[in-house]
C-alpha cells in the first residue's frame, strides 16, 4: 500500500469516527463499522485485481475528499445484509458512509409517476448515496436515477432493487456528471417469481466512471433486460462490469450494451452470465457493440458466458469497429455530406439504446445530449 493511499484512508477514518458518533441507529452503526473494517482490509481497488485490470482509480484514491453524509432513512437489517459490502473498497466505503434512502412500492400498486432519485456532489466532496427500492409483490414502477454533478467531486453510489414476485420495475440510470467528476456506482438486483426488470443505463458523463451490476434470479419465470450505452470523448474512461446469475430455471435475460468512443477515450465492458446447473430453460442473450470514432480511442470488451446446464438458449458476442462503409455510401448517395452521414450513423447507433426510454422528457434530453456530443443538430418530427 502506498503512503498516499494510507493518508487518504486516514482522512476517511477521521470522517468515519465523526459519522459513527452521530449514528443513532444501532443496526446501521454495526453495519457501518463492519463496512469500514472491510474498507481498511480491502483498500481501494487496483489494476492488479482481475476485475480492475483496465481501470486505474488512483485519480480517486490519491485525493483527500471531504465526506458528506446527510439525512438518512432507517433500514431493515435483512435488506442491508444482502448488500455485497466486500465487493470492493468502494462498496465497503459506501456502506460505511451510506446516506440510506428506502423506497417501498406497496403490494399490487402501480405507480403512475416515475420515482426520481438524483445526486450531485460539490467540488472536493465525496457523497455516498445508497438507495434501496423494494417493489413488493405485483407492484409496478419506474425508477429514474440520475447523476448530475457539476464539479470535481466523487460520487460513490449503491442501489439495491428488490423486484418481488410478479412485480415489474423499469429502471433508467443516467450518469451525466461533469467531465472532472468521478463516479462509482453499483446496482444490485434480485428478481422474484415471474417478475420483470427492464434497465437502461446511460453513461455519458464523468472523467472516470465505473458501474457494477449484479443481477440474480431467486425464483422461476423472471425476465430481465439489462441494456446500456456509454458515449465517451476527450480522455473519459468508463467501465461497466456486470454479472447476471441464472441460479433457478426458466428465466430470461437479454443484455445489450453499446459504446461510442471518440478522441482518447477508453471503455471497458465485462459481462459475465452464469447459468447454473439447476437453471434449465434459461434464455440468456448478451451483446456488446462498440464504435470507435478515433484511432486513439480504445475499448476492452469481454463477454463471458458460463453454462452448467444443457437445456438452455444462450448467445453472446462483442464487436469493435468503425462505421459500416455500405451504410455510409447509402447516405452519401442521398446527398448527405460525409461528416453529416457519419454523425447520423453514430447517432443511430446510440439511439438504438436511447429509443428504449419511454419517458419522453428523458429521452429528449438524452437525444440532445447525444447530438451535442456529435456537434450536429437535428429536429425530430415526432
Amino acid at each position, binding site marked *: 500500500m502506498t503512503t498516499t493511499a494510507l493518508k487518504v484512508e486516514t482522512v476517511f477514518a477521521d470522517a468515519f469516527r465523526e459519522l459513527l458518533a452521530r449514528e443513532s441507529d444501532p443496526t446501521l452503526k454495526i453495519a457501518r463499522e463492519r463496512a469500514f473494517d472491510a474498507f481498511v482490509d480491502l483498500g481501494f481497488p487496483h489494476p492488479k485485481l482481475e476485475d480492475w485490470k483496465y481501470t486505474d482509480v488512483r485519480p480517486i484514491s490519491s485525493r483527500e475528499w471531504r465526506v458528506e453524509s446527510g439525512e438518512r432513512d432507517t433500514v431493515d437489517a435483512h435488506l442491508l445484509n444482502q448488500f455485497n459490502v466486500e465487493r470492493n473498497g468502494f462498496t465497503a466505503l459506501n456502506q460505511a458512509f451510506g446516506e440510506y434512502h428506502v423506497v417501498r412500492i406497496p403490494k399490487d400498486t402501480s405507480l403512475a409517476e416515475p420515482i426520481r432519485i438524483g445526486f450531485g456532489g460539490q467540488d472536493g466532496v465525496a457523497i455516498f448515496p445508497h438507495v434501496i427500492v423494494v417493489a413488493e409483490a405485483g407492484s409496478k414502477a419506474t425508477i429514474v436515477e440520475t447523476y448530475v454533478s457539476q464539479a470535481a467531486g466523487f460520487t460513490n453510489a449503491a442501489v439495491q432493487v428488490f423486484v418481488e414476485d410478479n412485480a415489474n420495475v423499469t429502471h433508467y440510470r443516467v450518469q451525466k456528471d461533469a467531465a472532472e467528476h468521478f463516479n462509482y456506482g453499483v446496482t444490485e438486483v434480485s428478481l422474484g417469481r415471474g417478475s420483470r426488470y427492464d434497465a437502461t443505463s446511460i453513461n455519458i458523463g464523468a472523467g472516470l466512471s465505473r458501474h457494477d451490476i449484479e443481477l440474480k434470479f431467486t425464483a422461476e419465470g423472471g425476465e430481465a433486460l439489462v441494456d446500456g450505452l456509454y458515449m465517451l470523448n476527450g480522455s473519459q474512461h468508463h467501465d461497466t462490469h456486470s454479472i447476471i446469475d441464472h441460479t433457478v430455471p426458466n428465466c430470461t435475460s437479454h443484455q445489450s450494451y453499446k459504446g461510442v468512443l471518440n478522441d482518447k477515450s477508453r471503455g471497458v465492458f465485462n459481462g459475465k452470465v452464469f447459468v447454473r446447473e439447476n437453471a434449465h430453460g434459461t434464455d440468456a442473450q448478451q451483446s456488446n457493440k462498440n464504435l470507435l470514432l478515433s484511432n486513439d480511442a480504445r475499448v476492452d470488451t469481454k463477454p463471458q458466458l458460463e453454462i452448467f446446464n444443457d437445456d438452455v438458449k444462450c448467445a453472446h458476442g462483442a464487436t469493435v469497429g468503425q462505421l459500416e462503409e455500405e451504410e455510409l455510401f447509402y447516405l*452519401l448517395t442521398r446527398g448527405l455530406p460525409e461528416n453529416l452521414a457519419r454523425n447520423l450513423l453514430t447517432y443511430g447507433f446510440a*439511439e438504438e439504446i436511447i429509443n428504449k426510454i419511454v419517458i419522453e422528457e428523458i429521452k429528449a434530453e438524452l437525444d440532445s445530449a447525444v447530438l451535442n456530443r456529435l456537434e450536429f443538430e437535428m429536429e*425530430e418530427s415526432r
Partner: protein
Amino acid sequence: MLLEVKDLHAGIDGKEILKGLNLEVNAGEVHAIMGPNGSGKSTLSKVLAGHPSYEVLSGTVTYEGKDLLELEPDERARAGVFMAFQYPVEVPGVSNSQFLRLAYNQKMQHMGGEELDPLEFNDYLKEKAKIVDMDPAFFKRSVNEGFSGGEKKRNEILQMAVLQPRLAILDETDSGLDIDALRIVAEGVNKLRSPENAIILVTHYQRLLNYITPDFVHVLAGGKIVKEGGKELALELEEKGYDWVKGAANAS
C-alpha cells in the same frame, strides 16, 4: 444531353468488368439496361453513383455537361443523380423521416431552395408517400430496418419522389418483388416520369418493362452494349434468351 457515357472501362478488385460502354441519355427518356448475370449491370449503376470500391480505368461520364466522375457520391446526389439500391441498406436508430428531411434539406441548400422544418416536411412526405401507397407509420420507423423486400423497394422510390432527381438509376428494383409490390413500385416510377428527368432501369428480367415502358432498350453483355432498340427488343430477348446476345458479345 443529360448523361453521356463514352468508352467506359471500369471494374472492381483489379478486375475489368465494363469494357468500353457507351450510353446517351436525354431528359424525358426512360432507358432499360438489360443483361445476364455478370454482364456488368450492377457495376454500371455503382460507377454512376460513385461507389468507392469501383474503379474507373478509362473513358468519360458527362452529366449536365460536367465530368461526373470528378464528383464525390454526395455531390452527385445533390446535383440530381439518384440510385435506387438493389439491396437497400438498413440504418438502425435513424427514422425514415429524420433521414429524408436531412437529405431533402441538403439538396435544397445546394439548390438555394427552401428548407423545411419537421412539420412542413411531414406534410410534404405524406404527399409523396401516396405515390408508392406507403403508410405514414413507416416514417417513424428506422430506415429500412425490419422492412420486407417490397417495403424496402417502395422506400427507395419514396426517396426518389422526395429528392426529385434529374437522373434516376434503378438497380434491379424489380428483384425480389411479388407481382403486387412490383405493380406498386412500377406505378410509382411512372408517376415520377417527366420531360425534365430521365430514368435508367437496370434489370435482368423483362417483366418490369410490362409496367414501365422504356423508350430505349440496351442489352449489356461482357461489359459492353451489344444490342440496342426500342421496347420490342425486350420482348425479343424474353423469347430468345440471353444466349442470343452473348453470341454477339463474343463475336465483337
